[in-house]
């Protein structure tokens, strides 16, 4: 049977998780506009993010920003907004690949390779370590050990 103390601890943790989750999701519309406009590109070939396109008289950015503001005001989800823009302006309008089919590869490959690299390195080091022949003891040099010990002592903080 779960003790009362444990129950309280679990409830506290649950409450903390809830607060964190709510805090993470709680964003006002201007913050959402800022975030979403930095997830899309301006298609005027300036190669800048929609939120950063600063071209005077740009035929796209002002119109797109108005559309984005309207979508957020309507209460559309981020996914719906990105799909709507993608349909209207083509897939290049998204500043990074969406998590769909082949696009997953773009996101997965770098971390997987890093993890594989770290794993392989650990294995190689372990293999080398097992193979290493113990070094013979250094020939005794008069006074050297004492000097070395003194250095070690004095360089300690």
């Amino acid at each position, binding site marked *: 049977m779960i003790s009362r103390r444990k129950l309280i601890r679990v409830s506290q943790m649950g409450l903390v998780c809830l607060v*964190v989750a709510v*805090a*993470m999701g709680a964003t006002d519309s201007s913050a959402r506009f800022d975030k979403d406009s*930095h*997830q899309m*590109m301006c298609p005027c*070939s*300036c*190669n*800048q*993010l929609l939120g*950063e*396109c*600063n071209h*005077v*008289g740009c035929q796209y950015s002002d119109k797109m920003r108005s559309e984005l503001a309207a979508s957020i005001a309507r209460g559309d989800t981020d996914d719906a907004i990105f799909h709507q823009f993608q349909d209207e302006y*083509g*897939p*290049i*309008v*998204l*500043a*990074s*690949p969406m998590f769909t*089919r*082949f*696009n997953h590869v*773009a*996101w997965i*490959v*770098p*971390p997987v*390779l*890093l993890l594989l*690299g*770290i794993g392989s*390195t*650990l294995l*190689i*080091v*372990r293999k*080398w*370590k097992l*193979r*290493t022949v113990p070094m013979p003891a250094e020939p005794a040099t008069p*006074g050297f050990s004492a*000097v070395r010990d*003194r*250095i070690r002592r*004095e*360089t*300690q*903080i």
Partner: protein
Amino acid sequence: MPEFGSFSLLLALALSGYTLLAGGVALRQLATGTRGRIAPDRLAETARRAGIGSFIAVACAAFALVYAAFTNDFSVSYILHHSNRALPGAYKFAALWSGQEGSLLLWALLLTGYGFVLRVRHKVDVTLTAYASTILAGIQVFFLLLLNFAAPPFALVEGAAPSDGFGLNPLLQYPEMVIHPPMLYLGYVGFSVPFAFALGALMMRYPGEKWIHITRRWTMVTWLFLTCGIFLGAHWAYSVLGWGGYWGWDPVENASLMPWLTGTAFLHSVMMQEKRGMMKNWNVWLIFSTFMLCILGTDLTRSGLVSSVHAFAQSSIGNWFTGFLVIVLSVCLFTFLLQRDHLKSEHKLESLVSRESSFLFNNLVLLAACFTILWGTLFPIISEYVQGNRVTVGAPFFNRVALPIGLFLLFLTGIGPLLAWRSASFKSIRKNFVLPGAAILVTAIVLMAVGLRPWNDQATFYSLVAFSLGAGVITAISSEFLRGAHVIGKHTGKNIFASMLQLMRRNTRRYGGYIVHFGVVVIFIGIAGGAFNQSHEQEMNNGQSFTIGPYKVVCRSFTEDSNLNYDTEFALLDVYRGDKKVTQLAPEKRFYTSSQQPSTMVANHSTLAWDLYVIYAGKNPQTGLPIIKVFLNPLMAWIWIGVIVVVIGTLFALAPNLSAALASNRVRSVAGPARLDDQREVAIAGRSGD
């Protein structure tokens, strides 16, 4: 003059071709012991002199192009498209690297220039230099073939020469553009030299690690140039492009970062070869990869394979670079397979917790960062091939994938120097890590206490991690300095600063490296400040104002002006902090007459805490009032200060060590033979743990 330039380029090609052929024949004869009509050493000497001559010929061609720019010779197509009469002198000089053909000529000039230095200093090691010189000549031949046949800079316009040119791209008319491209090219091209030495050493089965000692300075100087080039480019983007940022993960930016990352990995792992005779295969491939990434980056951005804002650099010469890349890779692979038994390690890793392992992980993370950037740059092409449509891989992708890798690297920067060579004991780890670990924790807690909420968004979380890790790394570096200085001070009686200076001079490479690490931390802190950027945009009439952060911005006036080169609109803005006026800013929008293109001139008030970055976005056509956009970018100055620290650290690491022997002699003459043990101790304290 165009004829003189063309002839110089043709002569340079002939001389480089001779250096390659004669050098190759001489080295073959030396290797096999055969002998032709001319003795191989004399043949090699003629090749060396021809190589020196090729630099003079390319320098003449570069002079001819600059001369054509200054004399407004618009019969030369390149000058017509990249200069005009009203262009200021400095930018006429910069026209040399403002377009495809000119920048290739600059590449050839720097390459032959590096070759010139190498060939003049051939007595360092005559045979190895002969190999390196011949390999460099092969690279020269490629670039000179390009310049003579694919992208000639002295091509003439058809018919009568126009009276004026089309002008320089307005984005390039900025003081940093006079220095940024040469720096970047010095870096790119410079990696040819360690590459040539590495390949040459492998070809001739060079005994020992002397080739690494010879190339160490070349590599560090090259790395320094590339670092300066990259950050000057970032500063230029920040000051000219007017979007409030400095790094957009554009393919051209990525192309410069990739060889920088592998070059950094090489500079670290090469120490393992010097100290322990390890990682020889790895090092050879690191320097091969660095050189090939320089070529690949150029290929990607000039072929038009990936889209870039640096569209002025695109052309159809991509196939040439692809072909060259295939040849380089084949030669490297063939030589490696033939000579790989020469690269056996003398030692193996003995412990996972050692300086060697930290270098290994540091290399791994640097290569992972390089691969991520390459992958992100190439993914649009792969996607088009697989899915039939091109996707964009921009800043959000790189920020999400590369930032954690960068922070892991920052973490390794801190722990690496604290580990001993061969194997670190648990006791020493516990002892060395207590202070940095405490600094990380305290910083994180303090930052959260003053209002940083890492759970609010990803950017704040990364910032908190960067600030905390930065504090840990700075503590680790400081404790290394203090520990050594404490020992020196105890034996010499000098104060802590004098002891620290002496310590650093005893092992410039090690302590220069620490200064570089410190600079990297400062850069990371500057980057982390980006999470708290603010911006505001407003149409402003005379006397109107708004507040952003601690500043109040008041519009005093707005007006127009013009000169021969451009028309300009600008606003005069007074900036107040409290009631005190701190500065007046004048953001501008220029319209260049010749090129008929607009350009933004940002006005920036920079302090250690933040940059007040003001853009004149244009006029509202309905009201005729200027639209002012303002960014408040925290800690931006730290990035540029960090770069200066990195430069200082690298220069310090390049300086020769204060000879321990000389110091010992001096102390002996003062203190007498009884203090010999102390002198040894001090000398060891300065050297240990390098």
